[in-house]
């Protein structure tokens, strides 16, 4: 479990990043973070990662205060997929990026089979010898996701993974998120894509003006109109239509199809 208490960060130029955010994130749950541009979403997760050192508050991971731990120490527990993939790519081929993520493993056989599995599930097999900068943004994002899969940490944080992705990329990502859920990982994602969140994420936190203005289940957020509208968000199509047509709230395709099976 991650317990965040009164976390605040301001940048050296006095700019507010986040202000007094507290939240508990249970293990093996999924949390989506939404909110306007510049509200502090990326700052918040950079604090979790250790890239930014919060001036106030604490981050407690499995009963241990990790404020003092370096990025490297935290990276044993937390995997991270950046918003801009170019910030994170540095090897000269895609395969080398994946291998770098697997470098701590000892068993060579295991490494070889992992490389193949990861390339396959990220649809990168045929691009393996390409330079990471020579593929599309969607593919660059999958390289990072592949690396996170290789690192195999308990917690995975993704900053707007669906942005700039085509619809097939989003479907692929959906499969990976479902796989991570089955593996009992804790998934934290920043996104504006409510359709994706609705389908795959259990909990949501809304950040506005650097503060947490809502935390709870995504379903509850959909039930109270005032919640999503605070962040200028609209209900996802699936929720809006199910409410309008049948006065029942569906947030996933499975529920939607069930709804139309009932007599």
């Amino acid at each position, binding site marked *: 479990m991650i317990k965040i208490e009164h976390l605040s960060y301001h940048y050296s130029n006095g700019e507010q990043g986040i202000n007094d955010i507290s939240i508990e994130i249970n293990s093996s749950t999924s949390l989506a973070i939404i909110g*306007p541009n*510049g509200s502090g979403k990326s700052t918040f997760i950079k604090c979790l990662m250790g890239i930014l050192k919060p001036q106030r508050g604490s981050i407690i991971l499995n009963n241990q205060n990790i404020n003092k731990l370096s990025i490297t120490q935290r990276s044993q527990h937390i995997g991270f997929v950046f918003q801009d993939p170019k910030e994170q790519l540095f090897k000269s081929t895609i395969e080398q990026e994946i291998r770098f993520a697997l470098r701590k493993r000892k068993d060579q056989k295991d490494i070889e089979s992992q490389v193949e599995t990861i390339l396959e599930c990220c649809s990168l097999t045929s691009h393996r010898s390409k330079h990471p900068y020579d593929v599309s*943004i969607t593919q660059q994002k999958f390289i990072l996701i592949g690396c996170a899969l290789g690192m195999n940490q308990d917690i995975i944080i993704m900053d707007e993974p669906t*942005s700039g*992705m*085509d619809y097939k990329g989003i479907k692929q990502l959906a499969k990976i998120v479902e796989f991570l859920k089955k593996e009992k990982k804790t998934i934290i994602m920043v996104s504006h894509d409510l359709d994706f969140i609705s389908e795959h994420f259990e909990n949501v936190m809304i950040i506005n003006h650097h503060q947490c203005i809502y935390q709870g289940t995504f379903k509850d957020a959909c039930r109270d109109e005032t919640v999503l509208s605070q962040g200028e968000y609209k209900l996802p199509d699936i929720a809006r*239509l199910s409410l309008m*047509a049948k006065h029942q709230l569906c947030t996933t395709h499975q529920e939607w199809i069930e709804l139309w099976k009932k007599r």
Partner: protein
Amino acid sequence: MAQLELSNFSFRYQGSQDYVLKDINLTLKSGQFTLINGLDGAGKTTLGYALKGIIPHVFEGTLLGEQRLNHKVFQEYTHQELTKIIGYCFQNPWTQLSMIKSTLEEELSFSCENVGYALEETRFRVKAIVRLLDLSHLIHKNPIHLSLGQLQTIALGTILVLDPDVLILDEPTSQLDPLTRRRLFNHLSDLKKQGKTIILIEHNIDDFLELVDHLVLLEKGSILDQGSVIDVYTRSLSIGRDIQYPSLTALLSTITSLDKPILNDNDALTILKGVKSHD
């Protein structure tokens, strides 16, 4: 007022074996709003570059066919002339911004200085765009202190400030929150009313369909289909094309078969009333 045309246009980047665009025939009339959609690697950005003249002025390669602006081939224009008429907003804001300026105000002014506007004119334009995009709280900030979503709005500002006749936007909403997206929709709607020729390359098609006069589906470098939104999606549904459909259309097609695209809640509810519950 500006009309853009590509005829029998093909392009291959220098050093590459394959043509990224193959035999493209496309006419973008003055005042027309065009949406270009397709998977990654379909050639959308390259098509944007070709319409802007970045190909062949910046990226070299093998080019077949013709690019025309107002019936004159691109080769008759200098790159600077094209820059004044055709604005291009890059997919990644870091590509767009000069990053040599220490405030956003300077960054916006730089755009105007770059094409030779006088100081007075520059000030006037920057002021107008700051008001239009609601950036007043950000203008004295250094771009490196902003979020990617904010930078994307600024990048758009550096183009809008030049008030070009043609506007090509490559995934301008990928990092934007819903409010900023809606604002962009309103700007584009105003610009369309002013007669601007607008070309939008987007995966977020739903936010903009209402404005679209002409839809172009690209697949592997060729035009798969083009026409009005209704026509293209109706044809696509009838032959079961595996493409990205508008989200309501995709959602409804999970429970019933559709012969035309569903683009708004009213049409969706009408269809849903007719859906018989089944086991």
